[in-house]
């Protein structure tokens, strides 16, 4: 079994609408209920405005790269191969952007 990190990139402006937060929360709950067996971890992040970046010893305010769609959360999933991982990743809610699927390096 391999592990993949599903990184959720979305435009934060999308969440400003009335009731959107509840809808997104419900969508993630439904995703978790359906694919819980394959989910090894996951979290939502606070908005990019709260990010702090460090390069060398220089500390700056803001996310690593200034982009419209920012990292807003992730799931760590387990799957036998990329096809199975993509199948699950397609179900990850990300209506204001998309997701990136990255294999976790096998250190064994």
């Amino acid at each position, binding site marked *: 079994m391999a592990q993949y990190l599903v990184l959720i990139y979305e435009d934060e402006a999308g969440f400003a609408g009335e009731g959107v937060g509840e809808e997104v929360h419900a969508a993630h709950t439904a995703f978790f209920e359906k694919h819980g067996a394959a989910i090894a971890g996951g979290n939502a992040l606070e908005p990019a405005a709260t990010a702090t970046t460090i390069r060398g010893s220089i500390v700056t305010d803001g996310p690593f790269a200034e982009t419209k769609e920012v990292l807003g959360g992730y799931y760590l999933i387990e799957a*036998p*191969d990329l*096809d199975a991982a993509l199948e699950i990743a397609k179900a990850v809610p990300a209506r204001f952007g998309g997701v990136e699927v990255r294999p976790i390096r*096998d250190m064994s």
Partner: protein
Amino acid sequence: MTEAVGVAAAVADAHRREWAFVLAATVRVTRDIDLAEECVQDAYAKALEAWANEGIPRRPGAWLTTVARRRATDLLRREVRFRTAMPLLVDDDTTPDPADASFDAEIPDDRLRLICTCCHPALAQEAQIALTLRLLCGLTTAEVARAFLVSEPTMAARITRAKKKIAIAKIPYRVPPPDELPERLTAVLAVVHLLFTTGHTAPVGGDLVRADLVNRAIDLARMLRTLLPRDSGVAGLLSLLLLTDARRESRIDRTGRLLRLEEQDRRQWNAGAIREGLALLGQAINTGAPDRYALQAAIAAVHARAERWEDTDWDEVVRLYDALGAAWPSPVVALNRAVAIGLARGPEAGLEALDEIGMPPELAGYSYLPAARADLLARVGRDDEAAAAYRLAIDLTTNDVERDFLAGRLREVSEGGATTRRPAPR
């Protein structure tokens, strides 16, 4: 002893016909593409000597596969090979066991696995194409680099990166389940089609057609046809390639000048390829909604059926372009539809259809758009505008043969020679 020339020819023939089969079956054993390639290359090298001594085997593919797979199991057992950090490919846990009595007797046809892995949507299309040429067609990295006019180190890096992604991200070595197969096959067909079109009108350089790429694309389409004989998408693509390639010999004259469809000597068209293409087209369009390749093949078939340019059923061509535009909307299709309308209903109607397209960003830099406009303008006698459009088309084309052709047309309209103006189609 078999004659050396005959053996070399037999090995070369087996290389072209059997490479994909031998490699696909060997990857099943090694679950490592690089190791499998090494073993298959080794088997072909051994064949040169063995076939000279023992004669050419009745089934060269089976001989080569047995030798390659034995070599692979030997290397894996002795672990003499330098071990890379690459993980083994994921398959469906049916890796054959060399200790099994049926190991050499039952060699599965794994070519569909191999091409589905090469054309996996998680790989960039240029990587899909490079892997397909390298792993299915057995081209060397240098040959693949030449086909796409990039340097060998660039192509080597592209292929290595793609192989790494297959292993590390665990793109499975497996035929997709039936519900996913149609979508995956779409990517495979797109790669084969792109190989063909790249070869058919070499985008850059001195030759109009790169025969090697065209032939490889047709070989691949035939392979898919063997593997999926009931698939209408495959039938449509092979039909399109055959009907288009049937005109290969007549597309340029002895001086290398590009000939338009109307100028081509139709007696030079390959009648065998046309017959086969038309038969395949029947299967492709009789099963549900025809896809873009089947519709393009149907258009090529209209031309193939017309004995002379004047006999072309342009109304049918326009109807087919309408269907193609609905199935696969694209500014290029709209452009070809406008050209067909110009022939079915006259140049004024063609120009009107062309104006409807406008100047979509996808067509910026596309030389066929000003060339088509120039053609229609010349036919209605607007020679100055036609000349300007030809000049624009000449600036945009990168193919020498096409540039010469356009320059010839520009001279005709600049001289205003009414005698060179082609007659209305009807």
